[in-house]
Structure formats: structure tokens, C-alpha cells
């Protein structure tokens, strides 16, 4: 029942978003554009970029995810449809999960397009530990999106402006950023392999914390 409800919400959101298309397209274009912008700013010097490669890879993805948080599910606010959801006999955790999956799908699409662009422009040889890179991309986006969806949904239902959302989530995401930047560095330049397990542990732990806690907290937090 719980998953059925999440899927229902997910399907509805995707139908709306794909019908309008504007959000996904702008997220993708933003990510690629920002990628190009960073390369120009840092002068595309391969030696120099090696040091900041993880940042160049991640920053466009994270910022375009941020773009998505406030705009995804905007249909919900239009006719106060969120209230319609809250009145229905739906587990609020299911609402969170549905929104999380939808946002995540969008961010994954951005990743799929933005990461190859990264390799294309940098003329990088293929990363050596592709497995680690994919793992990091997957869990890194997951953690960030979970955190973002949690706070955006709460902020929207508490009449807090969207403006505050980045200010709230970036400090909380510091452990996540450190983990993904370190792991990405290791994946791209496998010469430095120190404390990899530790970072994987941190990343997994962070994901579990910010996925499971909202599932239970949402029911308490969305009631008034």
C-alpha cells in the first residue's frame, strides 16, 4: 500500500513534468552550460583541472538539482493540491518517497548527460575505477536529493520562502560533499587510495539517515 501510494504520486508528478518538459530541459541545459562555463573559467588546463576535477564534475549536478527542488512539484501548490493529498488517507512518508524518486530520476538524467560531457571536454582517458565513480554518482545524488526534498517540502508547507532552502541544506550537506569529492577524486585518479572504506561508510550512513528519518518524520511534521 505504502509503495503503491508512492508510485502513484511519482507517476502523477512525472506525467505533469514530462507534459511541460521545461524543468527537465532547463536542468540539463543548466548543468551542461555550467560545466562549459567552469572549463572556460579555469582555462581548461588539464594539469590545473586535475586538482579541481571532482568539483567541476559535481557542482553543475548539485546546482541543477537545487534548481529542481523548488520547481519540481510546483503543480502541487497551484490549486493547493498538497492539502488534497493531506486530506486523503495517504501515508505522508509515501508522499516523501514519491517526491524523492521523482527528483532523483531527474537528477539521474542530468548525471547521465552531464558526466559524459565532463569527460568529453577534459579529453580524459576513461576513469580507471568506473565502478567507484558510478557508485559515488548514485549515492551522492541520492543523499543530496533526499536532503533537498525533505527540506523543500517542509519549507513549502510551513510558508518558509524557497530562498532559505539552499542556506539550510548546504551546511548540512558538508559531510556529503567531502565524501563525494574524495571518492570522485579516488575514482578519477586512482593513485591516491587512502581511507576509501571510511568515505564509503560515511556516504552510505548519510544516505540512510536522510532517507529513513524523513519517512518517519513526515507524518509528524506535516500535520498541524
Amino acid at each position, binding site marked *: 500500500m505504502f509503495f503503491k501510494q508512492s508510485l502513484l504520486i511519482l507517476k502523477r508528478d512525472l*506525467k*505533469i513534468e514530462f507534459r511541460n518538459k521545461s524543468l527537465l530541459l532547463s536542468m540539463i541545459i543548466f548543468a551542461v552550460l555550467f560545466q562549459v562555463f567552469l572549463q572556460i573559467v579555469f582555462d581548461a588546463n588539464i594539469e590545473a583541472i586535475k586538482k579541481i576535477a571532482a568539483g567541476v564534475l559535481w557542482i553543475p549536478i548539485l546546482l541543477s538539482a537545487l534548481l529542481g527542488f523548488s520547481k519540481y512539484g510546483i503543480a502541487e501548490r497551484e490549486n493547493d*493540491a498538497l492539502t*488534497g493529498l493531506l*486530506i*486523503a488517507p*495517504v501515508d505522508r512518508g509515501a508522499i516523501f518517497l514519491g517526491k524523492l524518486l521523482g527528483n532523483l530520476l531527474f537528477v539521474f538524467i542530468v548525471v547521465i548527460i552531464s558526466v559524459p560531457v565532463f569527460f568529453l571536454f577534459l579529453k580524459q582517458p576513461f576513469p580507471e575505477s568506473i565502478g567507484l565513480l558510478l557508485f559515488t554518482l548514485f549515492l551522492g545524488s541520492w543523499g543530496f536529493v533526499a536532503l533537498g526534498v525533505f527540506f523543500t517540502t517542509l519549507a513549502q508547507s510551513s510558508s518558509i520562502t524557497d530562498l532559505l532552502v539552499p542556506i539550510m541544506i548546504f551546511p548540512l550537506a558538508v559531510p556529503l560533499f567531502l565524501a563525494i569529492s574524495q571518492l570522485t577524486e579516488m575514482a578519477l585518479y586512482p593513485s591516491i587510495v587512502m581511507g576509501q572504506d571510511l568515505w564509503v561508510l560515511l556516504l552510505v550512513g548519510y544516505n540512510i539517515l536522510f532517507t529513513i528519518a524523513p519517512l518517519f518524520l513526515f507524518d509528524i511534521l506535516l500535520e*498541524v
Partner: protein
Amino acid sequence: MQLKNVSLAIEDKPVLRSINLNWAHGEAIALLGANGAGKSSLLKVMSTLLHPSTGKTTMPEGMSLQKWKSKLGVVFPETFLYSSLTGYENLLFYQKLYGKTDNEQIEQVFNQVNLSRVQQERVETYSKGMKQRLAIARAFVHQPTHLLLDEPFDGLDLASKTILERLLKEKNKQGVGYVLVSHDSAHAWDLCDRAVLLHNGKIVLETPCTEKTYRSFMNQYQGWLKEKQHDVF
């Protein structure tokens, strides 16, 4: 449903004060009062959207919260519709949300609100009255046994009003109870068994809806309204 001594404060401002109300199964109640009297807030409490600051709400016959919610149909001033989805998709979504899939029921509701022809068009192309009718259809689509209606006649033309009236009377015969918020008291009188007048968050008058009681009710009602105006100016 039973409300016992319910009070509600929003942002420390008292909105409802010790409300006692008994909503029997299948009973139609008219909730009347001036703007800001607390009618909408009372509906929100009954829909469990707001929790009373003090006092208690009891669901009928030991229903669980989820059960109560699934039996409830709601028309609020906001339509809760998704404008980039079609009318049909909207109803389908809300029906599934209540754990049901019954295409015939959707067809039937579309017929009842006279929107069958446009059900495959997006809601954003609808006129205001059509949206309101679709919102009413949305409230009926999971076959609720209790309805909370906040000014459902708003934005409807005369023909649609008659349709909705007929629909409500028909449902009431089938045992569906409703709470109707309206500022048109004569209209509400026709549709309900009992009238409840709210003023400043308090129930000031409760009376069965008969022709005899109407006149005396109207006198008092206008009295309250005058006092209200006097206060404002």
C-alpha cells in the same frame, strides 16, 4: 462525528471557542455565519487537517483516522486540481489515492456534473465554473459517506447550481451526510436538516431547518450581521 469542547488558535489567535457539535450519520448540517466566523476552520478540524488546540474530536463508531479520511469527501475554496492534467486524469489520480479503481464510477460522476464531453481536456482550458464542478466531482469520486462542503455553489451558474442541489439531495437519500458552509442561508435551509450559526468562533444558535424556524433565525442572523458591520466601521 463528535466534537467536544473544541477550541482552536491559529498563530495564537483564537479561531474556534469551545465548539460542541454532534454530526450523526447521514445528517445534513448547514454551517452559517459571517466572514471570519470560523466556518472554514471548523471544516478543517473536521477533516483532521487542523488539530484542535484543546478539546477532542471523536470519529464515528471507533473508526481509525485513516478510515475516517477515506470516508470523507471535501470541497474547499481551492480546487486541489492539477491544471496540466486532464479532467479524467485528475479524477483517476484522486480515486487511486483513496485506494479505489472504478472506471464506471468516474464516468458516472462526470455525467452527474455534466462534464463528460471535456473529460479528456486539460484542466487549464476549463472555465472557472467547470473547474468548480470538477472539484465537486473530485470530492465524489471515491464514494464518500461524509461530505464537507465549503461554499460549493461559488462560481456555479444557475443550471449547475440546480444540478448540484439535486445531487446533494439524492446523495442524502442514500445516507450520505454533509456539512454545508454557505453564506446563502435560504439556500442552505432547503438542503439541510439542521442549521448551526457561528459567530466569532462560537456556536450561537442551533435549530432544525423548518419553515417555522427560518423567520426567527433570519431575524437573529441579521442582528449578528449588523453588529458585525457596526464593529467594522
